[in-house]
């Protein structure tokens, strides 16, 4: 007996398929986790001595004595960029012809686009959680308490969805895995044209201007506020707003690109 499956059942089937694919290629997941953890250890090791507890009472005491709290958001944001793999999943399906098979079946074309984005978001959640666990072990202690970890995680999720949308749009538009890979180049300006190592007030000249226009700045500052300072609602709000707007814009472009890709020639 055949009855047309609902949108959500279709989405569940295709999402499960991609999760199986991720689980069966675990080595592909390791570099991003490793890089994020590496950032955390290296930055804490290199800069923790200067800006950590010994900076107490000096102008460099922006971490309130705990540099792990200050630098953890950078690692989380870098982990959340793993959402950028979503475009690769889709492009692999286009290149291998799996995409065409689904197109020839009476299933929603949106499901084909949404499934890799959901898997991207799940990866972001898992990777960010793992980095936070490592951060906790080496001394992270949010100023607002444990709920601070959940706030950071939620920001990472929205930010990761934004990158997933960007990646899908770039992947579908380029139509090749190289194109989708090349699009991850955005990682560098996103991370480093921001108050990565010091507060924004310490940035000077062109970098200060670039950081002001980089949405990553507001996401990192928002995460830092709950980790280092406590409840600073306007900063927190700006972080969610920046991540939300970024996600909305990239999702919009993903939808437009996907619509063009699924349209009949």
């Amino acid at each position, binding site marked *: 007996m055949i009855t047309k499956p609902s949108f959500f059942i279709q989405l569940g089937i295709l999402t499960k398929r991609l999760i199986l*694919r991720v689980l069966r290629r675990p080595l592909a997941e390791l570099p991003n986790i490793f890089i994020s953890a590496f950032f955390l250890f290296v930055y804490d090791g290199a800069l923790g001595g200067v800006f950590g507890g010994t900076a107490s009472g000096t102008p460099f005491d922006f971490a309130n004595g705990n540099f792990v709290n200050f630098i953890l958001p950078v690692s989380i944001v870098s982990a959340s960029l793993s959402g950028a793999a979503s475009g690769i999943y889709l492009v692999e399906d286009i290149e291998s012809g799996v995409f*065409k098979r689904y197109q020839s*079946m009476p299933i929603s074309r949106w499901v084909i686009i949404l499934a890799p984005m959901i898997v991207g978001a799940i990866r972001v959640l898992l990777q960010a959680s793992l980095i936070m666990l490592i951060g906790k072990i080496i001394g992270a202690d949010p100023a607002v308490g444990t709920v601070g970890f959940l706030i950071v995680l939620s920001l990472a999720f929205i930010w990761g969805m934004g990158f997933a949308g960007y990646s899908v749009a770039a992947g579908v538009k380029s139509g090749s895995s190289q194109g989708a890979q090349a699009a991850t180049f955005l990682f560098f300006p996103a991370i480093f044209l921001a108050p990565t190592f010091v507060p924004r007030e310490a940035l000077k000249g062109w970098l200060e201007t670039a950081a002001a226009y980089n949405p990553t700045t507001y996401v990192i500052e928002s995460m830092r506020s709950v980790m280092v300072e406590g409840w600073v609602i306007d900063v927190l709000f700006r972080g969610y707003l920046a991540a939300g707007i970024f996600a909305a814009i990239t999702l919009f472009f993903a939808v437009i690109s996907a619509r063009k890709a699924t349209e009949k020639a």
Partner: protein
Amino acid sequence: MLAVEVKNIKKTFKTKKDTVEAVKDVSFSVEKGEIFGLLGPNGAGKSTTILMLTTLLRITDGEATILGSDVATEDKSVREKIGVALQDTGIDNILTGRELFFSTARLWGYSTKDSETRTNELLELVGLTEAADRRVKTYSGGMKRRLDLGLSLVNSPEILFLDEPTTGLDPGSRRVLWDEIKRLRDRGVTVILTTQYLEEADELADRIAIIDEGLVVAEGTSDQLKASIGGDVITFSFSNKLDLENAKKILNDCKQEGNDLRITVQDGAGKIPSFVNELTANNIEIEAVSASKPTLDDVFLKVTGYRLEGSETSTKSEEVFGENQ
């Protein structure tokens, strides 16, 4: 009701610099329960035709119906009635055969239990039960094609589209797939397949349309097409180029292929002596002569002016007619 009815469909691709007419004018109809073959070389427009009929490409002009549903306006209805195995349709290599069948069955709307049953049925049908729990990347080319065929059958389609189903397979695997396709026809499934192999079209298709440069240039059963040649084919071989050139002047309507001249006549065997006498009377030395019934290869040569790659002569031959035709 016809299974497939195609009337004057065209497909034009526009690029920034150019307009390409991939399909110029294709019409044919397919009865329920028959195997219909679209035969032609690469770039003839076969695959584009299939993509249009399976709703994956928009038809530029003309119309087509699948079991009464208009391909252009009722694409969802069409997709529910058909199974598709395209030349470049992908298979998820990292999943197992069983997982692929199961997830495809779920996507078609089978319940979990029915999906398991359908999976087992299809694994059995395409002979992959033993390999069911292996990842597809470990399958041979032939096994992947059988898997692909099986996946296109999950929804028990009334019409099956197969785009070059045996391209790249060894003769043994090709034979296995042919048997599968014939079995499907015997179970009432209408099959439309494209091929560039003459032998495949001859062996499988109940009717054949020859497509060349986006046009249907001949259509009929294999026997009808061969009969359209109008007799037997006599082949004269020459070892000397001068003899060949002189023979061309004597043999009306002959076609040259390398060092051979081919001529189509009624009662080929009976006519050989008179041709040989005439040539030898003109001091032309014949290396060999033979008469044969026309093949699809001959039909293809007649309607397109060249041979299909992979056929006997394998290259586009120069068409030369006798001077006194």
